[in-house]
Structure formats: structure tokens, C-alpha cells
């Protein structure tokens, strides 16, 4: 047995199976907790309790739901394209699963620390679109098809700003490897240096995983349920799982790229301790990473409980006319800053100054209530035109 493990191929195989299993179990547990937390959180926002009947304080609700979905009859419509119909949920789920391979949960806790980490992520996540379109097409249902096509349009168009926003840390760190990018943020997180791009990343990420301001794919009030209308039982559960796993994935990538991964901000000694403390340090790092992820996930839920869904044309307009130019310009700024003949600290400081100046400028300019572009006359003049009765 020992000698067998020394064989590099066998060792790799064992590592693959163990890491794969760990990540899969981790995703399943995370999603279970996430669904419950989403329902509780939305409940609190809406002044209600959320699920509170199953188990102590409703904590077993998602487990019960999952069990129910497992036991349900798995219906495949007669006229559906059987093979594609069965394949689609897996295609949607797979990218969310694969991304975790390159995410550094701790100093040494990476399943495979690829030197092309970001490229791998952007390549793998774009596969999910195929799953959505396949599901919509295979269902042989017009609402499902509409949902699938919408999702294709949306995800393909938001892929561009998402990847552009993911490139900024690459430029700043000079590496595509995620653990390098994390280590580069030991002193200052990139969110403080390029807040504009971080915001763009979050926005494009929300659109990429079909979260609420951009959840055109399953616009219940317009399409029945979108691409998964005809799905039931375990296949539907897989779509649901993929949706939440994708949300967590976006949060995890964002944390690695902009929120410093497992590092503590402005505390170099703490980071040094984590790096040198071995397994315990890695565990602490993992907990820090997970906490950050959960904060981001909760923030997306907060947005979900706040913002209404935007229209399809607005979605496209925002993506192509606002987000892509914004990310392109910010990226240009990043590249300029890095190419300046100065010490890296000064480059970063200059970039941060410009970024914060943009944000503060937007705040100053947009602080007061303004008249919408379309309206002909400002409101004050209308009210001034009406004669005042009380004067008589």
C-alpha cells in the first residue's frame, strides 16, 4: 500500500479523489446552509421569521426540502430531447464545482495551484451558458426556451466586464496564479486600490450568476420559471444547487481577487504567522476566507432583498454601454499606473487616489435630487406656475 502511494500516478489519482470529494461535500453543505440563511435573511428583511417549523428554529428546513426533492418523481416530458434534458443540469453545475480547484482557501490549501488560475476560472465558468441553453432547448417548452436564450444573452454579455474586472488584480499582482494574487494583498487589499473595478466585478458577478437585480433568467412574473420550468425532482435540485454554488463561487473568486483571500488587512505580522504556523495557520486562514465569503454572500442577499429586477433592454444597455466602458477605462488606468516608472507603492497609491477621486466625484455630483433626462421642465417651475390659494 505504501509503495503504491509512492507511484506518482496513483498518488495523483488519490489526491484527485480526496480533494474532489472534499470540495463536493463542502459545496453541498455550504449550499444547504446558504439556502436556509437566504430564506431567513429575506424573512428578516420583510419583517417575518422565515422557515421556523422544521427542526429547532427551522434549521432542518433545507435538509427536509432536499430529501423531498430526492424522493420526488423525476419527470421527463415526452417531447423533450432526452439526452440533452438529462445532461443539462450537470453542465450547469460542473463549472461551479470546478472553479474551487484553483481557489486558495489557505496558504497551502489549494487543490491545484495552477499558474493560469484566472484563465482557468474564466474558461470554466463560461461553460455554464451551454447548460442553460441546453436545458431551455431540450425542455421543448417556449417559456423554458425564452429563459434559456435570455440567460445566454445575459451571461455572454456580462462575461466581458466580469473577465475585465478579474484582470485588474492580475495586472496589479503580475500573476495569473490565485495564491500569488492573494499573497500580493497581504498589506493592502485590492478593493481599496481599485474600488471601482471591485464594484464592477460584483455587479457583473451578480449578472453572471443570475442574482436578483439581473435575474432575468427566472423572471417568475414574465416566464414561468425560466429554463428550469420542466425540471422536477433531482434534476431541479441540481439546478438549484448550481445556482447557489455559483453565488458562493463568485463570492470566493471575489474574495481571492479583491478582498485579499485569507489575509488579514493592514496586519503583516498576523499574515506572517498564518504563513508559518503550518496546519493551524491554514485552518485559521480557511476560517478567515470563509467568513469573508459569507459576508459577500450575505451582501448579495441584502441586494436581493432590496433592488427590483431590471428590464431586459436595460440589462443589455447597462452591460454594454455602462459596465464594459467603465471596466475598460479602469483597466487602462491600472495598466498605466503599473507601467509608470515609479516604486510599486507609489503606483498603487496613485491608482487608489484616482479611483477614490472618481467615487467621491460621483458622490458629490449625484448627491442632490436631479431631474430625469427625459422630462422637459424642472419640477419647481411647475409648482411655481400654480397660483397659491392661501395668499388671498
Amino acid at each position: 500500500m505504501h509503495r503504491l502511494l509512492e507511484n506518482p500516478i496513483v498518488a495523483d489519482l488519490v489526491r484527485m479523489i480526496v480533494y474532489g470529494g472534499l470540495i463536493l461535500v463542502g459545496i453541498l453543505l455550504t449550499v444547504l446552509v446558504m439556502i436556509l440563511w437566504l430564506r431567513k435573511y429575506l424573512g428578516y428583511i420583510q419583517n417575518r421569521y422565515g422557515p421556523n417549523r422544521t427542526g429547532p428554529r427551522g434549521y432542518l428546513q433545507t435538509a427536509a426540502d432536499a430529501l423531498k426533492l430526492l424522493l420526488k418523481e423525476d419527470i421527463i416530458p415526452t417531447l423533450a430531447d432526452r439526452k440533452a434534458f438529462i445532461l443539462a443540469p450537470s453542465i450547469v453545475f460542473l463549472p461551479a464545482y470546478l472553479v474551487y480547484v484553483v481557489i486558495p482557501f489557505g496558504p497551502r490549501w489549494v487543490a491545484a495551484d495552477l499558474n493560469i488560475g484566472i484563465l482557468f476560472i474564466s474558461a470554466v465558468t463560461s461553460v455554464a451558458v451551454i447548460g442553460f441553453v441546453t436545458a431551455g432547448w431540450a425542455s421543448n417548452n417556449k417559456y423554458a426556451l425564452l429563459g434559456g436564450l435570455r440567460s445566454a444573452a445575459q451571461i455572454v454579455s456580462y462575461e466581458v466586464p466580469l473577465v475585465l474586472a478579474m484582470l485588474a488584480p492580475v495586472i496589479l499582482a503580475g500573476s495569473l496564479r490565485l495564491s500569488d494574487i492573494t499573497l500580493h494583498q497581504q498589506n493592502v487589499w485590492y478593493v481599496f486600490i481599485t474600488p471601482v473595478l471591485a464594484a464592477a466585478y460584483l455587479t457583473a458577478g451578480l449578472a453572471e450568476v443570475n442574482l436578483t437585480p439581473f435575474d432575468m433568467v427566472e423572471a417568475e412574473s414574465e416566464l414561468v420559471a425560466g429554463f428550469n420550468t420542466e425540471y422536477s425532482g433531482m434534476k431541479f435540485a441540481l439546478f438549484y444547487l448550481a445556482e447557489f454554488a455559483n453565488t458562493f463561487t463568485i463570492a470566493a473568486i471575489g474574495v481571492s481577487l479583491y478582498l485579499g483571500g485569507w489575509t488579514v488587512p493592514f496586519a503583516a505580522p498576523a499574515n506572517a504567522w498564518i504563513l508559518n504556523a503550518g496546519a493551524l495557520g491554514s485552518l485559521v486562514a480557511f476560517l478567515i476566507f470563509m467568513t469573508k465569503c459569507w459576508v459577500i454572500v450575505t451582501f448579495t442577499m441584502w441586494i436581493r432583498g432590496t433592488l427590483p429586477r431590471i428590464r431586459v433592454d436595460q440589462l443589455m444597455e447597462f452591460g454594454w454601454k455602462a459596465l464594459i466602458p467603465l471596466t475598460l477605462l479602469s483597466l487602462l488606468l491600472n495598466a498605466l499606473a503599473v507601467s509608470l516608472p515609479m516604486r510599486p507603492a507609489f503606483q498603487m497609491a496613485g491608482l487608489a487616489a484616482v479611483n477614490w477621486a472618481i467615487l467621491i466625484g460621483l458622490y458629490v455630483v449625484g448627491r442632490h435630487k436631479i431631474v430625469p433626462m427625459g422630462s422637459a421642465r424642472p419640477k419647481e417651475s411647475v409648482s411655481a406656475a400654480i397660483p397659491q390659494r392661501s395668499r388671498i
Partner: protein
Amino acid sequence: MLQYLREAGYSLLSIGRGLKVTRANRRRRPVTLLYPEQRPSLAPRFRGLPEVDLNICIVCHLCEKACPTQCIHIEDILNAPVKGEAGAAETKPGKKKEAVVFNINAALCMFCGLCEESCPTKPVRSIVLNHGFEVAKYRRDDLVYGIDGLYVNAPANPPVEK
């Protein structure tokens, strides 16, 4: 261009304002009433199931006529036996009407309160829409309340604060 930037800034700020609103509500207590455990505190004039006090009722049929859904059904005997002065055993026909059948079909009742308004007995009305609101039954027949089933002189459901 400036207008564009202003709108961009304003919309960003309004996202922040919206987030503030939801955060404020997130900190507020849920308004949900955990019903079977917590009972609602009903308003004094809450209109629940009609209740009849047959001791005051003069069997005038006015409520039966007033009912828009005909959920009240009354049958009476005119010459109800009245106790004589001599003793309980001796009875003679009197003028007082007495209800033999007084059915209220809760399935038909729409809790409008017209029966209560039409009731002539003073100072207390003999048919009153009281606080009974848990009217669900397993069988349709159980929803018809007869003489013995009416909540005669039943106290109002004691309201429990949540």
C-alpha cells in the same frame, strides 16, 4: 456628459439608500403572529360566528329574514307549554313562541352582522356576532349549528396578547 455622471452618481447613491431601508427593516422585529401558539387580540367589535341566547330570543324570525345568504333557519311552536302557577307538572298552552329548530349554517354565513342589527330584543341582542373565528370543520354537516350547538351565553374568546 455632466448630466450622465450626475445620474450615475445619483443612481449609485439611491442603491445605498435602498440598502439602508432594508437594513432598517432587518433590525425590526417580525410582525408575524405565530398563530397556534400566539393568539390574536381581537377588536371588541370583531365579527365572528353568530351566537344566540335562546333565553332572551323572542323567536321573531327577523334575523332569518335579514340574512342575505339564508344561513339561519328557525322553526317554532306557537303554543309552547308554559309552566302553570301551581307546579312544574301542570302546563297549559301559552302565547310565547319557542324555537324548536334554530340552525345557523356557518358554511353559508358571511359574517355581515345584519342579523345582529335586525334583532329587536333590548337591551341585549339575542343574536350577536361574537369572537369565534376558528370555524373549520372536517365535515360539511358539522358546520350547521343547531340549538344545542349554538354558543349560548358563551364568553367571548379571551384575547391573548402576543
